[in-house]
């Protein structure tokens, strides 16, 4: 029995079981903390009625979701309508399979990965699965047979398409730098320090790529300020207008699970995953059970920080307008990530991919883009300020409205 549990398969099973359950709980509590943080930022208390400090609020909310009447409107495509939230959640959860939680555990003579699976193409797997998340939204929006939902879905599609490119390019930068797609490998490579002070994390090599990855991760998980797909003001609720009860809860969980996946990915790619300098138990060499726990703890802490950051951003920034969203992706992020990609290739060619030159290159790109920004004639809104006022004749209509009779 012990043997089985300590085998890779056994561990994977345990992991699957643990992750799914823990994730469910964590996502639920993410929602709770989201509300708390929102309240604190807004000088309020937040939920505090159910249980001490309101911690059972989520239980109550969950109960409410469970027991609410599950309405499926008559005009929807039933199968897809029900499948969409499931897809949305499922995809978010599946991504966790490749996340290296605790490095390796040496049990007796065996060494097992504290990871559900450690495929060679782990990163690609995560990327592929994550990009499927959009299907939940698109299918949900389409199946709802509702204009607002459909608009939400369309927006989500466009947004996903646009932001997948910088996301992918950023990840490519890491892949080029690390030379592997295995996430465990990427983590291990980041262990250690430069000059004994700076952890050898990719963030210090490619900070710009890190920031862009974070931004695209926000967009990919439909978080504010990129939550255009569910913009309440314009679209009533966007893709989930028609959803309620458990199905709506699944969308909700999916979103938060997505946040955790994205955060975990960012941590693994740029922040050394479970590694933390100066703590011996978090070094790759430590493989005893205590180290596994410590490593998991470190990664969870990093993830928690990103989740908090996302929430913080959500309650700070207003939603982008759609044109701004697009402009950011196509005019800012993609050129910059392309430049980073080229930089990474160049550095790899010269073998300097893990040297300080990467940082220098990053800074150069930043300065160049800032110069572009500074000298660009286009204002934030994208419309030149010196355009003449809009006249009716501009639209090919009669110059005077008096002639228009209906």
């Amino acid at each position, binding site marked *: 029995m012990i043997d089985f549990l300590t085998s890779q398969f056994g561990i994977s099973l345990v992991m699957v079981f643990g992750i799914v359950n823990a994730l469910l709980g964590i996502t639920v509590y993410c929602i709770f903390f989201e509300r708390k*943080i929102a309240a604190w*930022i807004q000088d309020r208390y937040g939920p505090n009625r159910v249980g001490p400090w309101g911690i059972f609020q989520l239980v109550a909310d969950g109960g409410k979701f469970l027991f609410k009447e599950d309405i499926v409107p008559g005009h929807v495509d039933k199968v897809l309508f029900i499948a969409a939230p499931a897809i949305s959640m499922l995809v978010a959860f599946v991504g966790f399979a490749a996340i290296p939680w605790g490095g390796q555990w040496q049990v007796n003579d065996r060494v097992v990965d504290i990871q559900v699976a450690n495929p060679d193409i782990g990163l690609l797997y995560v990327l592929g699965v994550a990009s499927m998340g959009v299907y939940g939204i698109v299918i949900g929006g389409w199946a709802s047979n509702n204009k607002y939902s459909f608009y939400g879905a369309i927006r989500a599609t466009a947004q996903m398409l646009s932001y997948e490119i910088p996301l992918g390019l950023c990840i490519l930068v890491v892949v080029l730098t690390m030379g592997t797609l295995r996430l465990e490998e990427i983590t291990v490579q980041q262990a250690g320090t430069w000059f004994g002070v700076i952890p050898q994390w990719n963030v210090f090599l490619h900070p710009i790529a890190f920031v862009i990855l974070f931004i695209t991760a926000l967009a990919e998980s439909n978080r504010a300020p990129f939550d255009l797909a569910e913009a309440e003001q314009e679209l009533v609720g966007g893709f989930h207008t028609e959803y309620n009860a458990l199905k709506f809860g699944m969308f909700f969980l999916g979103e938060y699970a997505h946040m955790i996946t994205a955060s975990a990915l960012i941590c693994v790619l740029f922040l050394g995953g479970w590694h933390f300098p100066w703590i011996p138990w978090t070094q790759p060499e430590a493989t005893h059970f205590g180290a596994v726990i410590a490593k998991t703890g470190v990664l969870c802490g990093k993830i928690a920080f990103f989740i908090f950051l996302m929430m913080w951003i959500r309650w*700070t920034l207003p939603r982008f307008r759609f044109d701004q969203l697009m402009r950011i992706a196509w005019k800012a992020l993609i050129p910059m990530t392309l430049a980073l990609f080229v930089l990474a290739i160049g550095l790899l060619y010269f073998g300097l991919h893990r040297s300080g030159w990467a940082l220098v290159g990053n800074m150069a790109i930043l300065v160049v883009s800032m110069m572009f920004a500074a000298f660009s004639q286009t204002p934030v809104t994208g419309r030149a300020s010196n355009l003449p*006022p809009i006249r009716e004749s501009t639209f090919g209509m009669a110059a005077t409205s008096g002639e228009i009779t209906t």
Partner: protein
Amino acid sequence: MIDDKDIVMVDEPVLSVGERFYLPQILDGMRTTIRHLFKTLFGRPITIQYPEEQRELRVANYRGVHRLNRDEKGRVACVACYMCETACPAHCIHIDAGESPWEDREKYPIKFDLDELRCIYCGMCEEACPVDAIELTTEFSLVSRTREEMILDKEELLAIHDRTVAEKPRKNPRITGYENTGDRPREPAKNRTNLAKEEGA
């Protein structure tokens, strides 16, 4: 028809380099929010924990739940004149008048119902009342489980008076035909000053 000359073009504000780059602004905003977060987390939120906590601040002219005042003898002060019913823009007051059982009074309300749900708390009834019998208290928490409970009758309104009389004394007007009403001096202030002048002279 709006002419071109009527159109005022407002140029967008010119953004600085940093502003164009978004990030400094975003960080600035985030600084603000995190400051609030910590202030709230370690200090005290602005929110009041109602109903455990009640607001300290009471504005004297706050228009809350109505009350029906009592006169000096503890009887309902209302003379059933229907002025409040007439003045009420929401038609929430219903009075049934009858001959009063007291000798110094002509009419009194047999029934006085006030639908607090229909009420818009405009205070017109208070304005209209010639004997200051109906007044709006500063009580704002009126809850019930049914609509019927929110229709307060005479007894309930009088009970509110008994409850709130300490914090908002009745104005006590004096009107003709009623003995022993009112405690405000009859003489207008003008005359008193005149007299003082005369006495001084």
